């Protein structure tokens, strides 16, 4: 593992987490905020493939499970983001992703991520919730994430790409 890339990825996740918890809570829609941490994991998947994305997804998910306002069973976001890393990393790697494919990947990842989180909640009976409320939150979440994609994904993917050649020669 290249330490520079690892540090960059972890820094991106921490920055996304803090922004998501403090800044975007002011613009939340029915309490739903853009899931920036998920966007970083998706960017990793698109640039570097499934394996790094799944590891980063696990780390980011554990952070999301443990960072202060969180009060749910730990490991739920970790599992959701590992699945997101897998989904985003399995997008075709041999062509540079187009804008359309990036947006589609984000939408699919956001849907899968929030759904996996909700499903583990139903299995663990963490909060007892109705399907209608869950679907509403999932839908708003997908909307937010797609809306933020043009601002976040090019930045994060560009940063990861710039760090990529160092890895290829190493």
């Amino acid at each position, binding site marked *: 593992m290249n330490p520079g890339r690892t540090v960059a990825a972890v820094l991106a996740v921490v920055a996304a987490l803090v922004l998501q918890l403090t800044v975007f809570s002011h613009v939340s829609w029915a*309490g739903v905020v853009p899931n920036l941490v998920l966007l970083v994991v998706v960017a990793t998947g698109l640039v570097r493939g499934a394996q790094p994305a799944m590891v980063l997804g696990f780390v980011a998910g554990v952070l999301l499970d443990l*960072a*202060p306002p969180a009060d749910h069973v*730990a*490991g739920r976001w970790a599992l959701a983001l590992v699945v997101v890393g897998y989904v985003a990393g399995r997008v075709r790697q041999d062509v540079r992703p187009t804008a359309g494919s990036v947006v589609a990947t984000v939408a699919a990842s956001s849907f899968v991520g929030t759904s996996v989180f909700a499903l583990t909640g139903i299995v663990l009976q963490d909060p007892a919730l109705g399907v209608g409320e869950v679907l509403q939150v999932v839908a708003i979440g997908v909307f937010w994430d797609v809306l933020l994609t043009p601002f976040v994904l090019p930045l994060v993917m560009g940063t990861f790409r710039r760090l990529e*050649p160092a890895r290829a020669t190493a």
Partner: protein
Amino acid sequence: MAVDLFERPTRQGSSPGQQPGRGSKQRERRWRVTARLEDRGRPSRSLVVALVLACLSLMTLDSAAGDSSPVEPVRRAVGEVLGPIEVGAAAVVRPFVAVPSWFRTHGDLRGEIGDLQAENARLRTEVNTADYDRNRLREYDGLTRAAEDLGYSLVPARVVGLGPAQSFSSTVTIDAGSQSGLRPDMTVLNNDGLVGRVVRVTRTTATVLLIVDADSVVGGRVGSSMELGSVEGRGQLGSTGRLDLELIDSSEVPNRDDAVVTWGSEGGAPYVAGVPIGRVTAVYSSLRETAQRAVVEPYVDFAALDLVGVVVPSGTASDRAVIEADGSVR
């Protein structure tokens, strides 16, 4: 190097036949690259299994052990590190949040004054006309006064982080922690009413479970009839967030606009008595359920939480000014 190899075939494809001599070499190289890239895209099976098992064991550890969970110290440690960062970020953002309110027009403010005057008049009529209402208010006032007489003090704190609704739990971070005298199971309120209770503290921050959370249950009392019941959250934030009140005496029907206040627990933990929670907006009863279910609209606007107070025992040592029960600041 890898990027070069992978872009060349595409360029070659757009102008075929220009360099026929190198075609086979190109194709050969492309094959190699594609194979490598496919390798890169597919995660090793052992890694997938390891990560999923790690997630599952983390969940099992945390859910089986409950409050004495081994994850709790880790959670606290992460909070100690991320808490100050959240406090700092919120302090940076706070001035910008106020920007939209600078652009309110004169007419806008005039309209608001009109609305407030109308509401004032309506409230005054309500208080003056019905004896019943007056009694109810007296009782309600008495309860809040009782809360003041309990001798509790308030530690002021600001909300610095809001848990996303994607996590399906309604929790916030506040910028006061054990240094300010906070402990778990303390009541959190603001000038409108009950906000929630402290579930976890770090040195500089605390996590507050809001009463609208689906896991939250508060002992409640209907101000007009003194009937007891439990107030449960629905897990919805924002202006549509409602609470459900279930009275112990199923024959008792609360009235519309009845005030619901906290019942209070022994020693004031987790909730002190007499804090206003909300007002009754509708009452439902079904043949299946033996109890009445009243819908309570909370007084607190949970989507716009900022300044809150944490109820601490009088005389608590704190790193900041404490508001005493008589209103003085220490």
